[in-house]
């Protein structure tokens, strides 16, 4: 995406909302969705449009985990670390991912393919441990399955949740 395309996309997202501060979060979520992160230009354009301080939006953007100010990977891997998943070895999954991708939770691979996040509870405790990749649940996961799953996403394909 060129700078110009990005700028027009930003103004398209922003101008879909009335110029009122209460739409700040919604507009930022849309930007996060469109670019996989909130570009700096997006934040300042939104501040100018809503008539609020950029610092205020920056404060919100750094507060919410769902918003990111650095580009996220193409595939977002969420490891559930809720109580049930934690007890069933969620941290082992994180270690295995580190072995495969070389990144800790909260980081993105250098080629921008994967981001790994540790999340609190995905609400599927009966299926623990759970890992979510781009909205697909991988249930009752064993450490041995991880390399295969990562590989299938790296090759551009998707695997079914119950293979």
């Amino acid at each position, binding site marked *: 995406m060129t700078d110009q395309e990005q700028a027009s996309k930003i103004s398209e997202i922003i101008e879909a909302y009335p110029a009122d501060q209460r739409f700040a979060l919604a507009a930022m979520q849309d930007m996060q969705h469109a670019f996989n992160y909130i570009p*700096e230009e997006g*934040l300042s354009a939104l501040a100018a449009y809503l008539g609020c*301080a*950029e*610092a*205020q939006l920056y*404060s919100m953007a750094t507060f919410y985990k769902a918003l990111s*100010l650095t580009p996220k990977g193409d595939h977002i891997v969420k490891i559930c670390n809720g109580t049930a998943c934690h007890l069933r070895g969620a941290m082992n999954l994180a270690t295995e991912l580190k072995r495969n991708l070389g990144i800790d939770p909260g980081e993105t691979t250098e080629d921008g393919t994967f981001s790994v996040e540790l999340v609190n509870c995905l609400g599927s405790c009966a299926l623990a441990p759970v890992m979510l990749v781009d909205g697909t649940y991988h249930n009752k996961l064993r450490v041995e399955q991880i390399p295969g799953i990562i590989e299938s996403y790296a090759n551009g394909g998707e695997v079914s949740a119950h293979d």
Partner: protein
Amino acid sequence: MSEKLTIRIDGVECECEKGEYIYDVARRNNIPIPVLCRSDAFSDHRACCRICIVEVEERGKRKVVTSCVYPISQECDVYTKSEKILEERAVILSLLAHRAPDAQRIADMNKAWGREGFERLVTIDNEKCILCGLCVQACDSLGTGAISTVLRGTEKKVDTPFDKPSEFCVGCLSCANVCPTGAIEFSQDEKTRTIWNRTFDLLFCEQCGSLMGTPESARHAVGEGEVPTVCDACRKKKLADEMMQTYRYV
């Protein structure tokens, strides 16, 4: 005219208006209540440091409240030094002292009202900030909005967006002046001032040469108007001289 009430603070009868905050009434009656995050510059207070807690007894029920934001609604008894308050304030001060060990004011308060027995707590190194947010409130109220609290939890801090010099900062030092613990760092030499990673020129009065702030802050203060070249004192003096001349022969 709002309703008048009489309340007792530590047994002293105090006149007050309905809706006044306990802290304001206590101060007017020379009853000291320690505070950190309260500033006279604002009408809405942070109620963040929690040091100003007092016990209020209304209709026989006692409760602990933050005096800086507790409006008086009925006749009541206020206790600023009850055993419960001294105990709780000591805990709060100990926590703050571990949070901001470099803040002299907290250290002094902790010495006066703190208690021992909190050694197990981890002390944050080289920290003065208690994250009360007065600086952000000051910056916002001036309409500059250059700083805000960023991140969350243990990483939370006050900063400019992206940790870069802010184009909106005018170098007025309002944030540093309002800070109760002197946590906002800035440096100043004969010609420049540096704050929030940005360096400003200094503006001096054309007449007496006293410091007037930065050109940016002077411009921000007058908006569209003309930026003053002389300080307030010189301007008043000039005006007074002119008046004297005008009415000389009257």
